[in-house]
């Protein structure tokens, strides 16, 4: 392993989806249009670290997660997994690496096959990637994993099918399937958004414990900043395919610099009746489509701080005074003073 425990590092990763036109139109016009789902993002994740990827729907969070696992092909850019660029590897070459990276899906009601019982569902990755050949060893590993996710390890439970399990149990199976291979890197795409509030915390706690125990690099994709605060060491805020701000979780929440992050934080409802805000959310409109992007800063049409300059300059993610805090806004210094 590399000296600084870097599990994954992505550089200028992009994914554009072409929009197909009708046959006649394509004859008359050569011009192609694209949806800019992910448009040049950079970040890295160390062993045992949880990075939260936060943003509204349609900002490209899920696409970024799938790209990192190479479940979809990037348009350009590199993905370094333990120092090896996997963006250019072929399907065949990547098979070895797949053992080391896993995903936890959003919806436990759809992500488990209804025809696989608990044992088969968790043993499938072991069998498929031929990690363990001996059925006895597989059974042992499944039992250990079930214990780690807080599920019973009885014969009776092994033979249950997904419809006989509660939502919380199903998602724990989803977590178990991801962790059974002891992977180095896991992407969790909104893993608790479909669960009842009362059981969310249990699933979150298990993931947190496992990440610490196995020193897994963990990408936690969510739209809920309050959840990110509970789960993540660092967060990256995405807007229209770009990362607009990145830093330590508490730093971002206490001291957001980008106007979009500020708006996002002020929009999160607070479970405390005395904390009702009178301030309006400093944002208007809704996310524009990723096809025809605004020129200059992508956020300028909705930004209350936007100036003429913002219409022309596309801001880069720059390091701020604080070492681990990055922001992509040309006016962040002025805005920061504005608040005081």
């Amino acid at each position, binding site marked *: 392993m590399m000296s600084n425990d870097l599990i994954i590092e992505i550089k200028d990763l992009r994914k554009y989806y072409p929009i197909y036109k009708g046959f006649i139109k394509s004859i008359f016009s050569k011009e192609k249009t694209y949806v800019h789902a992910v448009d040049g993002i950079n970040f890295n994740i160390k062993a045992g670290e949880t990075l939260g990827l936060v943003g*509204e729907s349609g900002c490209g969070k899920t696409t970024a997660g799938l790209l990192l696992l190479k479940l979809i092909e990037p348009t350009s850019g590199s993905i370094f997994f333990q120092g090896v660029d996997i963006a250019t590897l072929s399907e065949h070459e990547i098979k070895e690496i797949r053992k080391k990276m896993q995903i936890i899906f959003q919806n436990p009601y759809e992500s488990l096959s209804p025809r696989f019982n608990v044992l088969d569902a968790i043993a499938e990755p072991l069998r498929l990637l031929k990690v363990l050949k001996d059925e006895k060893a597989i059974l042992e590993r499944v039992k250990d994993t079930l214990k780690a996710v807080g599920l019973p390890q009885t014969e009776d439970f092994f033979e249950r099918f997904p419809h006989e399990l509660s939502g919380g149990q199903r998602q724990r199976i989803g977590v178990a399937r991801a962790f059974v291979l002891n992977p180095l890197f896991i992407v969790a795409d909104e893993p608790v958004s479909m669960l009842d509030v009362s059981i969310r915390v249990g699933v979150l706690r298990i993931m947190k414990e496992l990440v610490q125990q196995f020193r897994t690099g963990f990408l936690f994709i969510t739209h809920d900043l309050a959840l990110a*605060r509970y789960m993540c060491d660092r967060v990256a805020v995405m807007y229209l395919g770009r990362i607009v701000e990145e830093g330590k979780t508490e730093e971002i929440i206490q001291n957001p610099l980008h106007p979009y992050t500020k708006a996002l934080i002020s929009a999160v409802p607070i479970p405390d009746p005395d*904390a009702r805000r009178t301030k309006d959310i400093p944002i208007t409109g809704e996310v524009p489509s990723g096809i025809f992007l605004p020129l200059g800063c992508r956020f300028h049409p909705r930004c209350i701080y936007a100036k003429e300059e913002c219409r022309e300059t596309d801001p880069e993610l720059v390091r701020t005074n604080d070492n681990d805090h990055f922001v992509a806004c040309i006016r962040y210094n002025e805005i920061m003073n504005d608040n005081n």
Partner: protein
Amino acid sequence: MIFQGAMNALNPLHRVGNQIHEVIKIHEPHVSEEEGWERVLDVLSRVGIDPSRAKDYPHQLSGGMQQRALIALSLVNNPDIIMADEPVTALDVIVQSQVLKEMKSLQGQLGLSLIMITHDLSVIAEICDSLAVMYAGQIVEYGKLRNLFKEPRHPYTEALLNSFPSITGVKKELMEIPGAPPDLLNPPTGCRFHPRCMKVMDICLSEDPKIVSTNDKGYVACHLY
């Protein structure tokens, strides 16, 4: 009534304005065509939709606008009471916050009563005045919002509050509620919450707790009181 999924609650084959106008035609047949349309356009602008969008089909509106259109639909007959079933769960945080503000101010303007059905405690804290907590088909605690948040009496209310992450204040460890919601075909005997309760006593297993009034006109159903 405002339904949960704005994307599915509107008929995709009819223009938004027509759908709202239909409600007037059905419930107030004496209203003339022109007056009806006037009210449609008026109610749309009230919820923050440009009246010119009345000719749009639902798919031409964004998620937030569809939800606003649904609110308009529920307002057009000047009701006294509106029931909103998870009106903002399908929306993004920023839009969610805009729609909640909208609902709150409309409620004030029109003097409506609002029943908000939701699992999201933070949404309740933003908009409601009083709160009834339900568990397994029964209301276990009812009272003024502030009292319930500050001094929850029922262990279930308390546990729910402790399991909810917040973005403000000191970062606290979240507590989980053990187990899963019960099977309502054969609910647990006695207090229905007892298998998951931290403060369970012997009496909880056998006897259904009586409803006890609290000093602030609320009530709680728990053997502790």
